[in-house]
């Protein structure tokens, strides 16, 4: 405990840690504020002129005009929404979701039912053509949630990588666990969720900046020669250093992501977190979660990834004597999944086994949850997000053990 306290003190006193921790607090806050900047809306002033709204002002306006539509997306409400759409179409002679529709009516009548109309459109449109809402029978919606499942199957059958029957069966099994009716609570944007992933990516990079130089710096300065020949200078020192680094990274991560989520949720409103993942993303998404649960899963999986990447950086650091080499190697591993995903355009076991597989741009945990991603092992199908969590956990323990081994076996030759 004494050594652990000393090791923590040593880390926290370093200029590098101070800068990294400061960035870990400021960057997620900045990103949460930026996420709010993507809201835009047009309204009319008292003279009938169009007034563009932006940022928080637009968000409040959208939320105020959508509030009436919040609640469970029952079949009855979906049918009412379709009827409203059709009557507005007939009354104004134009598509209420198209451009040129009177703004005041749009906000008053269409905005509250917009998420419901989107769900109907996504469910009944085909790859070839969009559903004709104007002529659609409301009775079609009697079996809406069964039709969503059928849509899921048809989407998978039309995708070359997903058409395998066991994958479809697995997806069906997962979808059947999703609570219905979905819940609509308009306000939170997908951009804001992208920013959560950006914040996690930055926090992982900052963790690398903190942990990659730890042992290699001791080697390159010669300090290792002193520490290594003390009573606790090998096994106990490496275990304590790893534990202290992981503690600092964990606290830094949760403070950073916690502040990001808190600010983001305060701006969008905590009430919006009740919304189902399916109403914000694709209607046939597989996670049985609302947005709050999705945020928790993203934050926890991000933390697990952060731990795996930190352990990997420490392992590199224990192996190489140049700080810059350890840092560059670790950063390459962090960005490699994004590169591999953009080159291959899909997931693979190679990608999944990188400790940073769940952070990045299109390859991140959020996209893995809301997209349909699976991998096969023999004739078994595993949902990709589950693989990401398992590989990160395995790699964390693997790299911690390797760090211990590599550091203990290091020989002072320079």
């Amino acid at each position: 405990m004494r050594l652990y306290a000393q090791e923590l003190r040593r880390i926290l006193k370093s200029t590098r840690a101070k800068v990294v921790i400061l960035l870990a607090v400021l960057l997620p806050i900045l990103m949460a504020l930026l996420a709010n900047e993507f809201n835009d809306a047009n309204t009319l002033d008292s003279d009938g002129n169009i007034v563009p709204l932006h940022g928080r002002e637009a968000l409040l306006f959208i939320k105020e005009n959508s509030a009436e539509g919040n609640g469970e997306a029952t079949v009855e409400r979906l049918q009412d929404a379709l009827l409203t759409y059709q009557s507005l179409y007939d009354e104004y002679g134009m598509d209420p979701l198209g451009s040129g529709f009177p703004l005041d009516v749009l906000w008053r009548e269409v905005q509250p039912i917009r998420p419901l109309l989107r769900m109907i459109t996504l469910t009944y449109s085909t790859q070839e053509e969009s559903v004709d809402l104007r002529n659609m029978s409301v009775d079609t919606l009697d079996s809406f949630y069964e039709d969503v499942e059928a849509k899921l199957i048809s989407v998978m059958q039309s995708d070359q990588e997903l058409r395998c029957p066991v994958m479809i069966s697995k997806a069906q099994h997962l979808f059947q666990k999703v609570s219905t009716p979905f819940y609509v609570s308009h306000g939170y944007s997908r951009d804001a969720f992208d920013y959560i992933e950006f914040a996690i990516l930055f926090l992982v990079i900052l963790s690398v900046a903190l942990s990659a130089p730890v042992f290699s710096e001791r080697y390159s300065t010669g300090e290792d020669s002193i520490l290594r020949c003390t009573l606790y200078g090998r096994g106990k020192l490496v275990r304590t250093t790893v534990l202290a680094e992981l503690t600092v990274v964990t606290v830094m991560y949760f403070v950073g992501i916690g502040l990001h989520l808190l600010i983001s949720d305060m701006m969008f409103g905590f009430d919006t977190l009740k919304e189902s993942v399916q109403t914000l993303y694709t209607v046939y998404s597989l996670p049985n979660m609302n947005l709050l649960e999705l945020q928790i899963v993203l934050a926890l999986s991000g933390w697990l990834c952060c731990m795996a990447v930190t352990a990997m950086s420490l392992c590199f650091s224990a192996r190489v004597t140049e700080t810059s080499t350890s840092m560059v190697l670790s950063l390459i591993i962090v960005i490699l999944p994004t590169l591999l995903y953009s080159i291959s355009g899909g997931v693979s076991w190679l990608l999944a086994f990188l400790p940073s597989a769940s952070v990045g741009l299109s390859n991140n945990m959020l996209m893995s949850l809301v997209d349909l991603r699976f991998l096969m092992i023999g004739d078994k199908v595993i949902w990709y997000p589950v693989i990401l969590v398992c590989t990160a956990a395995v790699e964390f323990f693997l790299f911690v053990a390797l760090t211990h081994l590599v550091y203990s076996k290091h020989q002072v030759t320079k």
Partner: protein
Amino acid sequence: MELEMKNLSKNFGKNKAVNCVSARLTPGVWGLLGANGAGKTTMMRMMAGILEPSHGQVTFCGKDIRNNSEYRSAFGFLPQEIQFSKDLTVIDYLNYVAALKNVAPALTKERIDHLLSVLTLDGVKNKKIVKLSGGMKRRVGIAQAMLNDPSVLILDEPTTGLDPGERIRFRNFLSASSADKIIILSTHIVSDIEDIADSVMIMKDGELNRIVSKAEYDDLEKLYISIFMEESDR
């Protein structure tokens, strides 16, 4: 108490840095003299247990020093070249090393205060080590090596960077603390050890050329030069 090197060798590729060195060290101050590149540092690293020998072994009281916690509890080491963590103060660093050496918490402050006073580091204890002069840094290095009051103390070129006054103070300090300890002082400067070493090991080309006790030489410098002249005469 006895520290023994048995047929100790270290090869780096085809280069034999240390070749078949055997010696038995008992309490006292031991000088390790040799030109740069003679293999002193490699030998000290093997004695410190931070470099694995290619052949042979080092034993402390009859037991191999590898994974020997008794040896590491009783050991202090000052390497030739070190840069300290740039963010730690003298006192922070000594507290950190004391924890690593498992110096009892109650004793730590007393030991640190004593060493700071003896090594005249009192006035800079709250300063960052990187901001100290070369001589002061060296003294911090000596202080960390002495923290656990070691029975075996290995100092590799300890006087590098010390001014003449500091060298004298260091020699006096070492003489005063040498009772019942095996102290090994490596240097290529004869005057650093000739007054305080009870015995001197002279290394040349990775081999232990000879071990001479204080009683066996009148002029160490003359002896040292004659050993190195042998080579050129041949």
